[in-house]
Structures are given as structure tokens and as C-alpha cells.
């Protein structure tokens, strides 16, 4: 599981062009949006595409999005 988390962090940094952030700086429970990584709505869409493309995971219930994307 920890390997998957590290992989996800690296993908988030690469996919969202977080130039000034490293994998080590993202804690597992850091909020992705708001005060944490400060991601925006376009980043959220980009994460949804990344999960579908790289892991075949589709968000079936958009209402659950806020909880699913709370942290890594």
C-alpha cells in the first residue's frame, strides 16, 4: 500500500505540474484541496482522468468526489 501511495504522489506531481512540490513533502493525510496542496477544480478533473487512464477507476457517484479526493 505504501508503494502505491508513493506512486500516486509522484503521478499527482507530474500530472498536475506541481513544480515546487516533492513526493516527500506530501503526507498521506494532507488535504489535496484547500489548505493542503491547493489544487483547483481543473486539477480535480485531471485527477479523475488520471485514475481512469492509469488505473481503470471511474468515479461512479460524483457526490462522493469530495470524500474520495480528500487526501492520498
Amino acid at each position, binding site marked *: 500500500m505504501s508503494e502505491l501511495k508513493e506512486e500516486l504522489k509522484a503521478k499527482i506531481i507530474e500530472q*498536475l*505540474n*506541481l*513544480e*515546487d512540490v516533492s513526493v516527500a513533502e506530501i503526507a498521506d493525510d494532507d488535504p489535496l484541496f484547500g489548505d493542503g496542496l491547493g489544487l483547483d477544480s*481543473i*486539477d480535480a*478533473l*485531471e485527477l479523475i*482522468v488520471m485514475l*481512469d*487512464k492509469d488505473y481503470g477507476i471511474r468515479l461512479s457517484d460524483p457526490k462522493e468526489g469530495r470524500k474520495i479526493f480528500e487526501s492520498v
Partner: protein
Amino acid sequence: MNKEFKISSYSHIKNQTISVNGNVLFTDDSEDFTTFIKAAYKFLDTGYSKFFKMDNLSKLAFLAADVLLKQEDLNEDENNIALIFSNKASSLDTDRKHQATIENDAEYFPSPAVFVYTLPNICLGEISIKHKLYSENSFFIFDRFNPEHLQLYANSLLRSEKSEKVLCGWVDIEENIYEAFLYLVESNGEIEHNTEEIIRLYKIL
């Protein structure tokens, strides 16, 4: 009698070089635009992390504007500097990147972050957000650099007092061929705001 205006400053980004008022600020050997503009961003101490999320046209326009606007004594809350930009290729550079993500049905994964830049005027929004410009902005597509149109529009905005200053110019990119020339028009300045002078400045770099 119509009031006359002046060009107070101008910038170029072309051939791996960034200059302001004809003076070279930054130059780099890299022929790859992404590498060049990233090095320029760091050298110029731009400090705006959203820069890395922009497409290449916005990065080009943003830095060309930033080197001029950070010389201005801007208000932290709101500024009335209009933007009149132009180019030939529109957002074609980014349009092609978007096309590449949707042309294969089996690999149909359009990137929202790329798609939002498939209009040339998005770069004006990026500049306006950074510098708090609550002002008119327009992006025109021409076959060539068109100083006549830019001068006419800038004069109209300034004479009607819709804008205090106008940042005008040309920002064009297709892969690693890029060119930005911006100039600031206002009441004060050393250079006459006429088409002859605009063309002269355009050709300096």
C-alpha cells in the same frame, strides 16, 4: 485636438533571449521552449507557481508581460491596464496537444488542463489574475504583425479614458518557434506612439 500618447517600455522574447527596452535580461542556449522558459522563470525570480500549469502560449505572454508590469507601481487590489494582444497561430500549439489526446478512440483521454488553454485569449486572463487587471482585453488573429490596428485600438481606449494604460503586442508560438513583443502605451514615455516607432521597436531583437 486628439491627445497623443507615448510608449513607456517594451519587451521581447525571441531566439532564447528576453530583453526589456532593448537590454538583454536573460539568454539561454536551450532550443527547447519548455526548457528555456522554465530557466527564464527561475532566473527572473517570478515566484508564481501557477505558471507551470499554463500552456506554452500563456507562459510566453505571461513572462513578456511580467517583465514590464513588475516595473510599474501597480495597485495591490485593482489596476486599469488594458491588454490588446495578437498573433498568427492562435492557440494552435495547444490545440494540437489536445487533438493528440482525442484522435484515438481506444486511448480517448482528453486532458482538462490542456483543453482549457485551447483559446488564445486565456493568456490574457492569466496576466490579469496575476496583476489584478480589471480592464478591457482583446486577442486578435492576424496574418502578420499589425501595428496599425494595435495603435488605433490603444488610442481609442486611452482617449475615451476606458484605460489608464494599454499593454499591446504580438505573442506567437508553434512548438519551438516563438516570438513575443509587448509594449506599454500611456501618457508618459520617451517614444512616440505611432506605427513607425512600433515597427522599429518590433524589429529591434
